[in-house]
């Protein structure tokens, strides 16, 4: 098939595809346009999480069946003592000898960075007239901005208001703030009624909504149904385990209370007791999630009011049977010590979904030779040492996973790293910096405000400018290292830039060729 034929086929295919889309949109009429306003706001580090809320809410709504069973204790419909399950006596546990059980330690995290902005407070509120939990709503107030304010415009009696992503969260503007009321259980009419009443009485965002009482208080990341419930909140320590049989799970622990523990279960589609090896009583909550499989969370309230969670997308009963006899009591302090001692522990540690879990970066030998992992071939590596901070990027080719970069930065024994898949090194679809990425932000200690930009770029090009996309404020390139990539006319580049503005989460990067041409990229 020659090129002309292929393009002709493509034109025909695209024509049919666009026609099919037009048929789908045949009855589309523009919704009312009532929004106005300045959209810019103080962008906080957690703002992208807010933006993501819509994604999850869609999935929640799509998958929520509200099929609670009378046979099991459920949160819904059982008043203030929703389950009747006494979880006292449970302890904080860790998995003893995970390799023996077939698990691989994937990552550990002590929670959000200590210098992060504190996420806004959120509350779970229930009607003050009975059957509270099945009508619980999550309430938060955030700075006004696009993340908090996207969706279909609705009338709540005055202020600009939107329902986000298929009606599971309603937000309305109040000066430079946005209030939101979310529920995976209430319909849009009910949410509108709640908000309309709040607006009518001039509710200012603090305290209980009219006709409601506050059942639990926590950080927004804990309580707003973003993605994996509560696992991203500031106080959560977690250890992640990989399993070849789809039983990957996260073991998480955080200080809490009875009310918070209950509130974390509010957005579950089903809650039931689970027999956990006769050690103690626990509940398992099922949450619709963004993946195809629901998230199951085994949870209990342990000693010292610590909330313990075991979260998996795998078959939760099978996981429970596999690990129940291998869990050892470590207590909250012991768990935190395990997290801190994990070789790959870091507040910003991340692994992409395609990254090899067995190839964790060895931080203990970071300054020594960096051997490629088993089965992998080191194509290039570049290292920067700057004011006690060592950053390194390695381009690795692996028979199973093709190309990926491992990027890491450490100082004083702490650091973070990530693996980034690489699509290719050359070819027609290879703009100068298509592989540039900012996979790492350091933890705010000795190297506070330093960010690594790395990627594969054509030989001869250099990283010349980095600036904040939103404000245009330039960030000095403190160091730049390049290393040749064998076999291709490209180089691996590692740039260390100073980002004094911690809110600068989107970067603009300029690469310049020897002849003066430049390319601008947005990361």
């Amino acid at each position, binding site marked *: 098939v020659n*090129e002309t034929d*292929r*393009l*002709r*086929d*493509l*034109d025909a*295919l*695209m*024509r*049919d*595809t*666009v026609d*099919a*889309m*037009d048929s*789908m*949109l045949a009855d589309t009429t*523009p*919704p009312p*346009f009532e*929004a*106005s*306003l300045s*959209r810019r706001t103080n962008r906080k580090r957690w703002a*992208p*999480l807010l*933006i*993501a809320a*819509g*994604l999850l809410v*869609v999935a929640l709504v799509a998958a929520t069946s509200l099929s609670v069973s009378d046979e099991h204790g459920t949160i819904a419909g059982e008043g203030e003592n929703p389950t009747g399950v006494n979880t006292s006596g449970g302890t904080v546990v860790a998995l003893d000898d995970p390799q023996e059980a077939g698990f691989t330690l994937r*990552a550990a*995290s002590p929670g959000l960075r200590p210098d992060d902005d504190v996420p806004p407070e959120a509350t779970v509120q229930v009607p003050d007239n009975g059957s509270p939990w099945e009508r619980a709503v999550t309430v938060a107030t955030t700075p006004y901005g696009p993340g908090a304010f*996207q969706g*279909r415009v609705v009338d709540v009696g005055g202020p600009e208001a939107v329902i986000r*992503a*298929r009606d599971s969260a309603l937000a309305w503007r109040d000066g430079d703030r946005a209030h939101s009321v979310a529920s995976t259980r209430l319909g849009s009419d009910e949410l509108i009624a709640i908000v309309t009443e709040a607006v009518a009485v001039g509710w200012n965002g603090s305290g209980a909504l009219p006709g409601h009482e506050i059942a639990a208080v926590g950080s927004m990341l804990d309580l707003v149904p973003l*993605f*994996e419930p509560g*696992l*991203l909140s500031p106080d959560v320590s*977690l250890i*992640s385990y990989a399993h070849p049989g789809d039983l*990957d799970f*996260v073991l998480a622990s955080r200080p809490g209370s009875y009310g918070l523990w209950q509130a974390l279960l509010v957005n579950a589609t089903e809650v039931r007791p689970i027999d956990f090896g006769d050690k103690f009583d626990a509940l398992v909550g099922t949450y619709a999630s*963004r993946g195809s499989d629901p*998230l199951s969370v085994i949870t209990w309230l342990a000693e010292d009011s610590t909330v313990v969670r075991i979260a998996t*997308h795998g078959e939760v009963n099978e996981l429970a049977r596999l690990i129940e006899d291998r869990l050892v009591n470590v207590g909250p302090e012991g768990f935190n010590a395990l997290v801190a001692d994990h070789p790959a522990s870091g507040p*910003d540690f*991340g*692994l*992409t979904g395609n990254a090899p879990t067995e190839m964790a970066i060895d931080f203990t030998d970071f300054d020594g030779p960096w051997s490629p992992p088993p089965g992998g071939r080191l194509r290039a590596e570049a290292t920067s040492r700057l004011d006690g901070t060592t950053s390194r990027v390695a381009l690795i080719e692996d028979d199973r996973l093709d190309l990926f970069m491992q990027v890491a930065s450490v100082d004083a024994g702490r650091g973070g790293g990530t693996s980034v898949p690489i699509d290719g090194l050359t070819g*027609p*679809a290879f*703009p100068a910096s298509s592989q540039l990425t900012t*996979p790492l932000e350091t933890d705010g200690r000795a190297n506070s405000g330093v960010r690594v930009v790395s990627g594969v770029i054509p030989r001869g090009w250099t990283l010349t400018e980095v600036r904040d996309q939103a404000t245009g404020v330039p960030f000095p390139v403190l160091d730049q290292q390049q290393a040749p990539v064998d076999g291709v006319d490209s180089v691996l580049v590692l740039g260390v830039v100073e980002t004094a503005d911690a809110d600068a*989460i*989107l970067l603009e990067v300029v690469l310049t060729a020897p002849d003066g041409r430049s390319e601008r990229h947005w*990361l």
Partner: protein
Amino acid sequence: VGVMKRHEVEGGDGTDLTAVDVIGSADGSFESFYKSQYRPLLRIALGIEGRRDLAEEAVQDAMVSVHRTWERASGYDRPGMYARRVLLNELISRDRRRRREQRAVERAGLPVAVHYDAELPRQDVWAALRSLPDRQQQAVTLFYVEDCSVADIAEILDIAEPTVRVHLHRGRLALAEQLTPITREERQ
């Protein structure tokens, strides 16, 4: 470049429109502009986002931006061009925010998956389009969804026409590479 039919679209007031010919406002008002441009913009956003709800939000957000600058934008010869640029930038920003948010999820070691709209036909084709680099994706989308000329695409993306041709050529070849075997099999 290939020959495509111009897609007839219908404005919110029921008027038949040809998208690339009427990317403006009949009476100079934002309301008229919004009604005539909503659906054409939604087609672009849907192709790139793959989900109607997210596409609708992106269009609303882009329209809010245009509305905010309407005094200036309404003075352009074809303000619809400007709206398309705003929308495409918005879509790129959303995609980048989403990727950062996904990294946050990955930090917990949990798998990330994004759902696309089951009602949108030929998801394989749109997924292939989304796999292109940003500029190629934008150029190819405008070419096929909007039936834009190279000159129109260059104006919307604010880049030179030769650059548009390069993006179009590379993007279409990459798409053909991925998709035309499907077509041939289907035809057989």
